[in-house]
C-alpha cells in the first residue's frame, strides 16, 4: 500500500487568495493512501523543502503530491528534494493549482473545488507511479563528419579545437567540396581558394583530425554516444603514404582524354590524376574506368616513372570500422541536372552553361586559365545572358525542377555579372530575374552596385526560348516592365541551376535513421530552435544537406553543429530520460506497428525464446525499445494494437486513474 504525502502551497497569496488551502488539506487527507496532508506559505522555499524531506523520512512516504505552481516551474526542485530524502524522484507528482487554477478563476468556492479535483488526480496518478532510474550511456569521445566540403571541414576543425578526435569521410579523392570549385566569393570578392585551402591544410595537419578521402560510409549501427560505422576506403591504386604528390605520373600517363570533373567536363585530365593543385591529401589517384593497365593489363607507365614506388595496381577497397559518439552529416549539394530544360538549348549548345561552369571559366586555375572564353569556339563572348531560377521555384506538378528557392543564385549571378563587366567592360551583360533576393549582410548593397555602377542590364522577366543558330544563341525573353518581348543575340548563356542535396544523401539518411523532407534535405529536430540537430539523437547537420545556404551561413551552421557535438562528447556519460516506452513482451504480437510510427527508430525487433504455458519453448518476434534513443513521445503506445507498449511516467493506467479522478 502506498503511503502518500500531500503538500499544499499557498504561494504567498497567489494560491491562497483564491483557493481555500485548508479546505483542500481536509479534502485530500481523506483520499485513500494519503497519510499526511499539510499546507505551507512557500513550499519551494528552503524551509518548505525541509518540511517535505522530514515528512518523507518520518512518515515513510512512498510518494508525494505537491499542489503548487506548474510542474514546468518547480518539478525539478521537488524531485531533488525527494531524492535528498531518499525517495525516488519519479515518485513525485505536481498538481498545478496556480497557473491552471488560482490564476484563472475568481470564485473562491469553485476554485477550491477544482484544486481538490486536481489534487485527487495527482494522488491517483502517484499511487500508480513506479520508481524509475535514469539510464546512463557511455560516450565514445570521437566524432565522425560525413562530407569534406567547407561545412565538414569547419565542423571538424571546431570539434578538434575543443580537443576531441574527429574523422572526416569524403567520397572524392580530395576534400574541399563545391567551394574549391568557386572563383570568387560574394559579397567581398575574396578568392575562394585563398580562404578555403588554408583550412584544408589546417584540417590535414591537425593531429586530432583524420581524413578518409575517396571513401564512403557503408554501414552505421548503434545510437547516440555509441555509433559503430563501417567506412569503405576505395582503392586509389596509389599508396597514400608513399605518394609525394609530385605529379610526374599525371603528366606522363598516356590516357589524356578523360573529362575533367573538377572543371565540369570543360577540359580533360589523365587517367592518373590529382584533382587540383591544392588537393588534400595531395595524392594521385588512378581512374580505373580509363587506366589501360587496370583495364587490359597493358601500360604500367606510371609505375615505372614513380620515384617513390607508390603505384599499386593490386590495391583493393578497404573496410574500416570505427566507433563514434556523434555523427555530423555535411554532405552538401550539387546543381540539378538540366536535361529537362532544353527550351534553353542546354543540351544542344556548349555555350549554354551552368553557373558552376561559369565559375570555372572565370577561375585562373580553370580550363581557360581565367580568360573568359566560351566553350564552343574559345572566343570572347560579347553578349552574355544570365537566366535566374532555372529549376528553382517550380511547382511540383510541373515535374521539372524544385519547389524551393535555391537561395544563392541571385548573389552569385550578381557576382558573375560584376566580375564580367569589371574584366571585360566591352561585354553586354543581361540578367533575367523573377525577383532579386538579397537578404544577407551587405548583399543588397552589392547587388545595387552591380546594377548601378557596373552597367549590368537587370531585366524583370524570364527567358522563354533559346535557339542555337550558327554560333549565336537567339534568346527570346519577356521584359515585363517594358511590356516587350526581347530578342537578344547572345554569345554565352549562363543558367542559374537550382541546387539539390547530393545524391548520396538519401541512402546515408537511411543508414543514419535520420529523417528527410520531400526534397531529400535532412530535417532538423526543430525548425526554429534546434536547427543543427537531426531528430535522431547524436546526428547533427551542417551545411547544405539541411537546406540551401551560402558560405557564411554554412560556416555558422558548421560551428553550431560542432558546439552541439562538443557538448555531447564532453560528457562521460549521458543521462537518459527514464520516461520512455517499454514493451510487454508477453502481449507483443510482433506486428511492427510501433517500429513504423517511431520517429526515432528506437524500436527494433528481436527473436526471443519464451516458455509457453505448456512448458514448451517458442521463439517469438517481439519489440524492444532502446531507452537511449527513445524520447518518450508515446506514439507507439497508442499505435500498438495489443497494448503491449506503455510509457514510463505516463502509463495507460496512470492516465486512466487521472481521468477517473477528474470525472468522479
Amino acid at each position: 500500500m502506498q503511503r502518500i504525502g500531500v503538500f499544499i502551497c499557498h504561494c504567498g497569496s497567489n494560491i491562497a487568495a483564491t483557493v481555500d488551502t485548508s479546505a483542500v488539506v481536509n479534502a485530500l487527507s481523506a483520499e485513500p493512501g494519503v497519510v499526511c496532508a499539510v499546507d505551507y506559505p512557500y513550499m519551494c522555499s528552503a524551509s518548505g523543502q525541509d518540511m517535505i524531506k522530514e515528512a518523507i523520512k518520518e512518515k515513510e512516504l512512498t510518494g508525494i503530491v505537491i499542489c503548487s505552481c506548474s510542474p514546468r516551474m518547480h518539478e525539478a526542485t521537488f524531485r531533488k528534494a525527494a531524492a535528498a530524502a531518499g525517495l525516488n524522484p519519479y515518485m513525485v507528482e505536481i498538481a498545478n493549482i496556480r497557473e491552471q487554477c488560482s490564476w484563472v478563476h475568481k470564485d473562491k468556492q469553485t476554485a477550491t473545488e477544482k484544486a481538490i479535483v486536481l489534487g485527487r488526480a495527482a494522488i491517483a496518478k502517484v499511487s500508480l507511479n513506479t520508481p524509475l532510474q535514469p539510464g546512463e550511456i557511455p560516450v565514445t569521445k570521437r566524432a565522425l563528419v560525413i562530407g569534406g566540403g567547407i561545412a565538414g571541414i569547419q565542423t571538424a576543425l571546431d570539434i578538434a579545437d575543443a580537443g576531441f578526435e574527429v574523422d572526416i569521410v569524403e567520397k572524392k579523392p580530395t576534400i574541399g567540396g563545391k567551394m574549391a570549385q568557386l572563383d570568387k566569393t560574394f559579397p567581398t570578392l575574396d578568392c575562394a581558394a585563398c580562404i578555403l585551402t588554408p583550412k584544408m591544410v589546417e584540417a590535414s595537419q591537425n593531429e586530432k583530425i583524420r581524413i578518409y578521402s575517396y571513401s564512403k560510409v557503408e554501414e552505421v549501427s548503434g545510437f547516440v554516444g555509441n555509433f559503430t560505422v563501417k567506412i569503405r576506403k576505395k582503392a586509389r591504386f596509389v599508396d597514400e603514404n608513399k605518394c609525394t604528390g609530385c605529379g610526374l605520373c599525371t603528366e606522363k600517363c598516356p590516357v589524356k582524354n578523360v573529362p575533367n570533373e573538377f572543371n565540369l567536363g570543360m577540359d580533360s585530365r589523365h587517367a592518373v590524376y590529382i584533382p587540383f593543385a591544392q588537393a588534400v591529401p595531395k595524392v594521385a589517384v588512378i581512374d580505373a574506368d580509363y587506366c589501360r593497365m587496370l583495364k587490359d593489363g597493358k601500360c604500367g607507365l606510371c609505375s615505372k616513372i614513380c620515384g617513390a614506388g607508390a603505384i599499386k595496381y593490386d590495391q583493393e577497397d578497404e573496410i574500416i570500422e570505427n566507433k563514434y559518439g556523434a555523427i555530423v552529416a555535411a554532405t552538401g549539394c550539387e546543381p540539378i541536372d538540366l536535361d529537362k530544360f532544353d527550351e534553353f538549348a542546354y543540351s544542344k549548345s556548349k555555350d549554354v552553361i551552368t553557373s558552376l561552369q561559369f565559375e570555372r571559366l572565370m577561375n585562373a586555375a580553370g580550363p581557360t586559365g581565367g580568360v573568359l572564353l566560351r566553350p564552343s569556339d574559345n572566343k570572347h563572348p560579347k553578349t552574355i545572358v544570365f537566366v535566374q531560377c532555372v529549376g528553382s521555384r517550380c511547382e511540383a506538378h510541373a515535374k521539372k525542377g524544385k519547389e524551393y528557392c535555391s537561395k544563392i543564385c541571385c548573389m552569385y549571378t550578381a557576382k558573375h555579372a560584376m566580375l564580367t563587366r569589371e574584366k571585360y567592360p566591352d561585354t553586354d551583360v543581361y540578367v533575367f530575374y523573377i525577383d532579386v533576393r538579397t537578404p544577407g549582410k551587405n548583399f543588397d548593397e552589392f547587388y545595387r552596385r552591380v546594377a548601378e555602377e557596373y552597367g549590368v542590364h537587370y531585366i524583370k522577366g524570364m527567358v522563354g526560348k533559346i535557339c542555337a543558330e550558327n554560333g549565336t544563341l537567339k534568346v527570346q525573353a519577356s521584359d515585363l516592365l517594358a511590356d516587350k518581348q526581347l530578342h537578344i543575340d547572345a554569345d554565352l548563356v549562363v543558367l542559374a541551376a537550382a541546387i539539390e542535396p547530393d545524391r548520396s544523401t538519401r541512402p546515408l539518411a537511411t543508414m543514419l535513421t535520420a529523417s528527410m523532407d520531400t526534397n531529400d534535405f535532412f530535417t532538423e529536430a526543430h525548425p526554429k530552435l534546434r536547427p543543427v540537430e537531426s531528430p535522431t539523437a547524436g546526428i547533427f547537420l551542417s551545411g547544405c544537406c539541411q537546406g540551401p545556404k551560402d558560405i557564411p551561413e554554412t560556416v555558422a551552421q558548421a560551428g553550431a553543429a560542432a558546439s552541439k557535438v562538443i557538448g555531447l562528447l564532453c560528457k562521460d556519460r549521458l543521462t537518459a530520460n527514464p520516461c520512455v516506452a517499454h514493451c510487454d513482451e508477453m502481449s507483443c504480437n510482433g506486428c511492427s506497428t510501433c517500429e513504423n510510427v517511431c520517429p526515432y527508430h528506437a524500436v527494433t525487433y528481436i527473436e526471443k525464446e519464451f516458455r509457453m504455458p505448456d512448458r514448451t519453448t517458442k521463439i517469438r518476434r517481439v519489440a524492444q525499445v532502446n531507452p537511449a534513443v527513445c524520447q518518450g513521445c508515446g506514439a507507439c503506445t497508442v499505435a500498438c494494437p495489443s497494448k503491449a507498449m506503455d510509457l514510463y511516467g505516463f502509463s495507460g493506467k496512470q492516465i486512466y486513474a487521472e481521468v477517473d479522478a477528474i470525472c468522479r
Partner: protein
Amino acid sequence: MQIEEKKPLIAAFCCNWCSYAGADLAGNNRLNYPDNVKIIRVPCSCRVDPTFILRAFQRGADGVLICGCHPGDCHYTTGNYYTRRRMTLLFSMLEYLGIEKERTRVEWVSAAEGAKFAQTVNEFTAAVSALGENRRLEDLRCKE
C-alpha cells in the same frame, strides 16, 4: 425528485511542450476561463489513446479537448500528425455513437498562445454547455 443542475465537466489533454505551457501562460496573464476544464498533462498529443477519451465519456465527462503543438512544430516532429489522423477517425465514430461532434475537439495551441488557450476553453465550454449533460456513453455503475 429534484435533479441537481450539473455543471458540464470537461477533460483536457495538453501536450507538455506546447499546449500545457500555453495553458500556463494563460495563467501567467491571468486570463479567466471557466473552471469546468481540468487538464491532464501528456508528453505529446500522440500519447492520447482513444480509450482515454472513451473512458472520460464513460465516467461522465461532457466534453473532451485535446491540445497539441501546431502541425510542423511538434517537439517529437510528427506526433501531432498521428493525433490529427487518429482523432479524425475517433470523432467520426463518436458522432456515429451519438456523441455530438461539438463535445470533442482538437486544437493546436503553442506555448505562446495563452490567449488562444483561454479562448478555446471559453468557446468549447460554451458549446458543451449548450448541449447539456452527456448521457450517451456514461456508465452509472462507475459512480459511487
